[in-house]
């Protein structure tokens, strides 16, 4: 029983990171109905930027904030430069652009910081495990950071006029434009926010999985699974889905399939959700008339 509880708690800790990245995916999906295949690589790039700042001697939290800001700008620039001309392009062209972005960012991180595995510092030092030995200091700390970030995002979308405008632009672009919302810029802000969230997720997972240019491939897959499980139209669903996938991954890895097939578990979740309940647990079923 102790073991199960331990697996669940540490599953929730990594689940928080999946939840963040799932939320980033959903933000872009809601606004544009695109799934950003390069979200993971962008997060990796952000983490490398943080790594550079920390090794240059900046304090961790200054680097943290600087990285979030830089990533936000990066997201906005990518939307403005790459995605804007593709607004009405067919799906194949979009997939092409996303995959192209993935390749470029991946190669760039490999080029600048080379492919060797690096350790990334964690701000949450604790020599003794916490909560009766169930969680490490980093796991607890990263969960707190994730929850605070999710709360901030919730408050931003619910209680600021900019958040309202962004939701409106995603929900009904034509009407929003008529009442004076600059829909194009709202999309760019959404990309920026998604990149910033991805950066936080990257910095939180890097101390666990170690820093290398491909570190996010697996994480991105779990985030996809989480987003789909919760309902890719629903931010709250994506967050819950992310946590759930973290727990499923840990329990499944410990008791069912073993650690070697953990990634396959994500594939199974994705296929199962799409087959059984394509709208996800909290999504609404969309009917389309033809």
């Amino acid at each position, binding site marked *: 029983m102790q073991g199960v509880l331990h697996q669940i708690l540490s599953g929730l800790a990594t689940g928080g990171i999946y939840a963040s990245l799932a939320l980033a995916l959903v933000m872009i999906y809601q606004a544009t109905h695109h799934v950003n*295949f390069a979200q993971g690589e962008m997060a990796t790039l952000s983490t490398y930027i943080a790594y550079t700042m920390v090794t240059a001697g900046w304090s961790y939290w200054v680097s943290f904030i600087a990285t979030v800001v830089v990533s936000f700008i990066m997201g906005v620039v990518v939307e403005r430069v790459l995605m804007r001309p593709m607004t009405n392009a067919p799906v194949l062209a979009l997939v092409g652009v996303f995959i192209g972005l*993935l390749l470029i960012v991946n190669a*760039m991180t490999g080029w600048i910081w080379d492919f060797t595995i690096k350790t990334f510092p964690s701000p949450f030092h604790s020599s003794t495990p916490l909560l009766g030995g169930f969680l490490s200091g980093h796991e607890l700390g990263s969960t707190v950071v994730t929850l605070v970030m999710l709360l901030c995002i919730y408050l931003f979308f619910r209680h600021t006029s900019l958040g309202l405008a962004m939701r409106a632009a995603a929900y009904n672009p034509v009407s929003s434009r008529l009442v004076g919302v600059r829909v194009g810029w709202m999309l760019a802000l959404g990309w920026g926010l998604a990149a910033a969230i991805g950066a936080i997720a990257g910095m939180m997972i890097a101390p666990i999985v170690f820093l290398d240019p491909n570190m996010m*491939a697996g994480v991105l897959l779990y985030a996809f699974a989480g987003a789909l499980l919760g309902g890719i139209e629903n931010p709250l669903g994506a967050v819950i889905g992310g946590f759930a996938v973290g727990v499923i991954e840990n329990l499944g890895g410990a008791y069912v399939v073993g650690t070697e097939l953990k990634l396959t578990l*994500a594939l199974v979740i994705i296929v199962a959700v799409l087959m059984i309940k394509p709208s996800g647990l909290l999504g609404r079923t969309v009917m389309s008339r033809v």
Partner: protein
Amino acid sequence: MSGEITAEATEASTSIRTQPSTRARPVPFAVTVIVLAGAVALTFLVSNYHLFQLTMLVGYAVAILGLNIATGYNGQISLGHGAFYAVGAYTAAILMSNFDVPYWATLPIAAIISAIIGFLIGFPALRFTGLYLALTTFALAVAVPQLLKFKGIEDWTGGVQGIVISKPEAPFGLPLNPDQWLYLFSLGVAGLLFLFAWNLIRGRIGRAMMAIRDHALAAEAMGIDLALLKTRTFAVSAMYTGVAGALSAIAVEFVAPDSFTVFVSIFLFVGLVVGGVASITGAIFGAAFIVFIPNIAEQVSKAAPGAIYGVILIAFMYLMPSGVAGLLRRLYHRLVPSSR
């Protein structure tokens, strides 16, 4: 109501506009003969290392052709064809090392096994369209190395170590070295597969495949069985890529899980786009691109091929969505006005 109709109509027309090559246009017979003769002549003209590269090129061309059948002609975007490539490669390697099957006999078996797996994956794929299918197949591609390392099948797959096989000698006492023979053998297999694909695409089934891509509802209304045709298309597509995988395994003489990362699938996709979506000859240009560009780019940096692939992929999406084949076709029609 009328709004919906217009939306539907514009959607259909954009998909037609951005994929101009809706018909398989036959390359003039003379050109085909000259290219084939040139390809055969190369056997005796270039070094063994270059022959190995050309054999890989032929393999990739078949793999990209397979991907093109599903993605280009049928509109089922797959980012996971590396999985079928791996299935073909491992089938050939396991048969040759564990069961002493001759190399040429592994190809039909690899074809059948990949086709069955493709057919099975084609079923869930029926429920996904566009981006969701791309997403699911992407997940498959990411999971491939882990599946290959799975302990339960280690006796066959050799686990992380992989399997070493050896290159076949030329049969009937032909005065060829193994590289030359394997190149000619691959060329023959690829020639047959290209001919078969060309016949498939320009016939009734090919038209039905394209009708589904351009307007699934209208295709269904015309009496096309969507589920049947889409799953079978996926199976044929997987079969092609599986045979290509088997050819490449024989040429490389080695298979290991880490040679089949997600990047194999991504590179096949890059080859598809660069060569030309929905173009049979495009597969050859795409294969040439993914074989030769890394060699040139790696002189700059180990990471350069990825960056160049990415930049070129995005550039093609913006500037040349019909790929090299589309560009050549336009040039040809401009130079030979009567061919329009």
